[in-house]
C-alpha cells in the first residue's frame, strides 16, 4: 500500500500528478498555485519524475504548450489560478473543442481587480461553459484522489474531454493535512498508457481544427454535450474502481450527508462543504431534518443525483461562493434549471451567496443561516430567494 504524508493541498496535487506520470508539464507561476509546479519542478530535477517541464512565459502559453504536447501523444498537466486562468481562457475552449484529454488544477482565487489573492469560486465558474469536466475537492485527500481520477476520466474514449480539478487557495492549497498517497505502480497500472482519439505526430497527414461550416461545427459541439452525458457514467465507474483499488469511500458526482430522511437539503461545493456538513450534523443532532449535498463534479452538472435526494423535500438552500453579477450564484441557477426539467412544482429553492473574495464563513455562520431557512419554511413563511450574505452589512 501507499504511504501517509502531511501535505498541503497544492502538494497533494503535485503527488497525484507524479503518480499519473505525465510526459509534459507546462506552467507559469501565480499565487496561490505556484507551489504545485515548484514541487513538480523539484521532482523532475531530482529525477523522481521523468517528465519534461516547459517553463513558459505566460498562462496562455502554458495551456497552449500542454495542448500541443497532448495532441502529439503526451500526457500533460498544468495548474493555475484566477487571472492566469482568465488569460488561458481562449485555450481552455480550444482544448475541449478539439476533444483533447488533459488535466489542469485550479487553485481558486477570486477574480481581480482590486488585487486580492483570497479564494472564492469565481475563477473556476468563469470556465463553466468551456466544455471541461470540472471537479472540486473538499479536502487535501480528495484533491489528490480527484487529480488521479481526472486523468482516467479525461482519457476515457467515452469522454475525451479535458478535466479541471479545483481547490480553494490557502484553505486547502496552503493547508497541511495528512494524505494517503497510493502506491505508484498501482496508479500507473490502473491508468494505463495514454489514450486519445487522434494523435498528430507526422505519421498520417491529418489536420486539426480547420475552418468548418456551421452544420458540421454544430455536430462537433453536440458531440461534446453527448460526451458530457457519457462522462456521468464514466465518473461513477471510475469512482467505484478507485474506491475498490485504493480503499476510499467516495460517492459519485455528489456526496450526501444525512439526506435519506431529510426534509431540507443544503447544497455546496468545495472546502467549506466540510464546515457546512459540520453545521448540518449539529442541526440534525438538534432534531432538524436537514441533509447536506456536496457537489464533487460541477460539470457535467449532477442534476439527476440532486433530484434523487431533492424530490419530496420542502426546501433546498444553495450556497454559492461566486456570483454571476446581475443574476445569482451559478450552482443555484444550474440547480433550479435542472430540477425544472423534472418537475413543475419545485420546493422552496433559495440561494445564499457568501464567502466572496475570500471572506471567511464559519461553521457557526452555516448553522445560523441553514437553521433560519428551515425555520422560516416551517413557520409557513417564504424564505428570500436570494441573499448575498456579507460580513459587513
Amino acid at each position, binding site marked *: 500500500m501507499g504511504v501517509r504524508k502531511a501535505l498541503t493541498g497544492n502538494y497533494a496535487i503535485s503527488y497525484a500528478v507524479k503518480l499519473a506520470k505525465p*510526459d*509534459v508539464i*507546462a506552467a507559469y507561476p501565480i499565487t496561490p498555485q505556484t507551489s504545485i509546479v515548484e514541487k513538480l519542478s523539484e521532482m523532475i530535477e531530482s529525477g523522481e519524475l521523468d517528465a*519534461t517541464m*516547459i*517553463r*513558459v*512565459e*505566460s498562462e*496562455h*502559453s*502554458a495551456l*497552449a*504548450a*500542454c*495542448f*500541443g*504536447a*497532448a*495532441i*502529439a*501523444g*503526451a500526457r*500533460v498537466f498544468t495548474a493555475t489560478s484566477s487571472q492566469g486562468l482568465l488569460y488561458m481562457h*481562449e*485555450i481552455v475552449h*480550444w482544448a475541449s473543442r478539439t476533444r483533447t484529454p488533459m488535466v489542469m488544477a485550479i487553485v481558486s482565487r477570486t477574480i481581480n481587480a482590486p488585487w486580492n489573492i483570497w479564494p472564492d469560486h469565481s475563477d473556476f465558474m468563469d470556465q463553466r461553459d468551456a466544455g471541461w469536466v470540472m471537479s472540486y475537492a473538499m479536502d487535501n485527500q480528495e484533491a489528490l484522489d480527484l487529480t488521479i481520477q481526472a486523468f482516467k476520466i479525461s482519457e476515457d474514449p467515452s469522454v475525451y474531454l479535458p478535466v479541471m480539478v479545483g481547490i480553494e487557495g490557502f484553505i486547502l492549497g496552503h493547508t497541511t493535512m495528512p494524505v494517503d498517497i497510493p502506491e505508484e505502480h498501482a496508479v500507473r497500472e490502473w491508468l494505463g498508457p495514454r489514450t486519445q482519439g487522434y494523435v*498528430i*505526430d*507526422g505519421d*498520417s*497527414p*491529418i*489536420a*486539426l*481544427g*480547420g*475552418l*468548418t*461550416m456551421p452544420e*458540421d461545427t454544430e455536430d462537433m459541439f453536440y458531440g461534446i454535450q453527448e460526451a458530457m452525458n457519457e462522462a456521468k457514467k464514466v465518473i461513477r465507474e471510475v469512482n467505484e474502481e478507485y474506491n475498490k483499488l485504493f480503499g476510499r469511500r467516495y460517492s459519485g458526482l455528489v456526496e450526501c450527508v444525512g439526506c435519506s430522511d431529510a426534509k431540507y437539503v443544503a447544497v455546496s461545493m468545495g472546502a467549506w462543504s466540510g464546515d457546512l456538513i459540520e453545521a448540518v450534523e449539529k442541526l440534525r443532532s438538534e432534531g432538524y431534518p436537514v441533509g447536506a449535498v456536496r457537489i464533487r463534479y460541477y460539470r457535467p452538472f449532477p442534476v439527476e443525483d440532486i433530484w434523487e435526494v431533492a424530490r419530496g423535500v420542502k426546501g433546498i438552500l444553495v450556497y454559492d461562493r461566486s456570483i454571476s453579477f446581475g443574476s445569482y450564484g451559478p450552482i443555484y441557477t444550474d440547480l433550479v434549471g435542472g430540477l425544472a426539467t423534472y418537475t413543475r412544482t419545485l420546493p422552496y429553492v433559495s440561494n445564499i451567496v457568501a464567502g466572496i473574495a475570500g471572506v471567511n464563513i464559519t461553521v457557526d455562520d452555516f448553522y445560523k443561516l441553514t437553521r433560519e431557512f428551515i425555520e422560516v419554511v416551517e413557520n409557513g413563511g417564504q424564505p428570500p430567494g436570494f441573499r448575498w450574505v456579507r460580513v459587513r452589512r
Partner: protein
Amino acid sequence: MSASRPKPPIPYRMRDVVLPGDAACPGCPIPMAWKVLSAVFGDKMILIIPACCSSVVVGTYPFHSLKTSIVHVPFASAAAVASGVAEALERRGIRDVQVIAWAGDGGTADIGMASLSGAAERNNNIIYIMYDNEAYMNTGIQRSSSTPLGAWTTTTPIKGKTEAKKDVAKIMIAHGVPYVATASVAYPHDFYNKLQKARGIKGFRFIHLHAPCPIGWRFDPKYTVRIARLAVETGLWILYEYHDGKLTLSSPSRAYIDPGKRKPVEEYLKLQGRFKNISREQVEEILRHVEMNWEWVKRHM
C-alpha cells in the same frame, strides 16, 4: 528575369505536398512557399498555424489542401503549441518529423510576440516561419507592426502608416537563437537552402519570409514574384542568415551591398496601389531606413 536552370530535386519534390484547388486568392505566394517546405521536408512536417490567411487557404472541413499534418491554433499561441508538440515528439523518440510554426506577420510581430519570444528564449526545437505580407490580410488589410511606412491599409486609409516596419528578424537575433534568416518567395532556391540549413540545426530557428499579397498591396496577381524580387533588387529586403553569431549575406542580395547596383526604390513602390499616396518625405525616410539596415548588415558580417 534570369534563366538559370533550377537544380533538381526541388521541382520534383515540390510536387508532393501542395494539392491543387486550395482556397488561396490567385497569385497568393503562401502555397508557393509551402512547395519549398515540401521540397525539404516532404510530408514529414507538422505545421502549426495560428489565425491567418493560411487557416483559410487550406480549405474547409472535412478536407485540407496539404498532404501533411496541420494544427490550427488560436492567434497568439503558435510558438507555444509548437513547443508542446516538439517536446512530445522528443519524448516519444520521433526525430524525423519537423515541427514548423507557420504564422503571418500579425500572429508573429504583434499578438504572437510574447509566445514567440518565450519559445525562442527556451530554445525549443522548432522552425518558426513568419510569412510577412505586411498587414492583417485575412481580416481585410489592417495595419500590423510589420506594415511598412507609408503603406495604405484599411486602418491607415488616408495618411498611410506613419511608423516604420518592425524588424522581427533583428529581434530574434537579439534572443541569441541558433539560426535566423530572412527569405523571399521570389527566391525559392535561397529559401530551400535556408530550410536545409535550419533542418540540420537543433533548437529554435526563425525564418522571416517576405510574401507580397496581391489583394492587400494592390497589384496584378501575376506580379507576385516580380514585386517580391524587386524588394530585394532595390535593397529594401535584405536576404541573410545569422548563425553562430555571424551574419552571412545570401547570394541574391550580395550585389546590392553596393548602392549603385540597387534598382530605384520607386520601381518597387509604383507597382503597388498601397503606396499610391506615399509622400516624398516618406520615400526619403524609407531610403534612410534601407541605408541604416545595410549599415547594420555590414557591421555584423
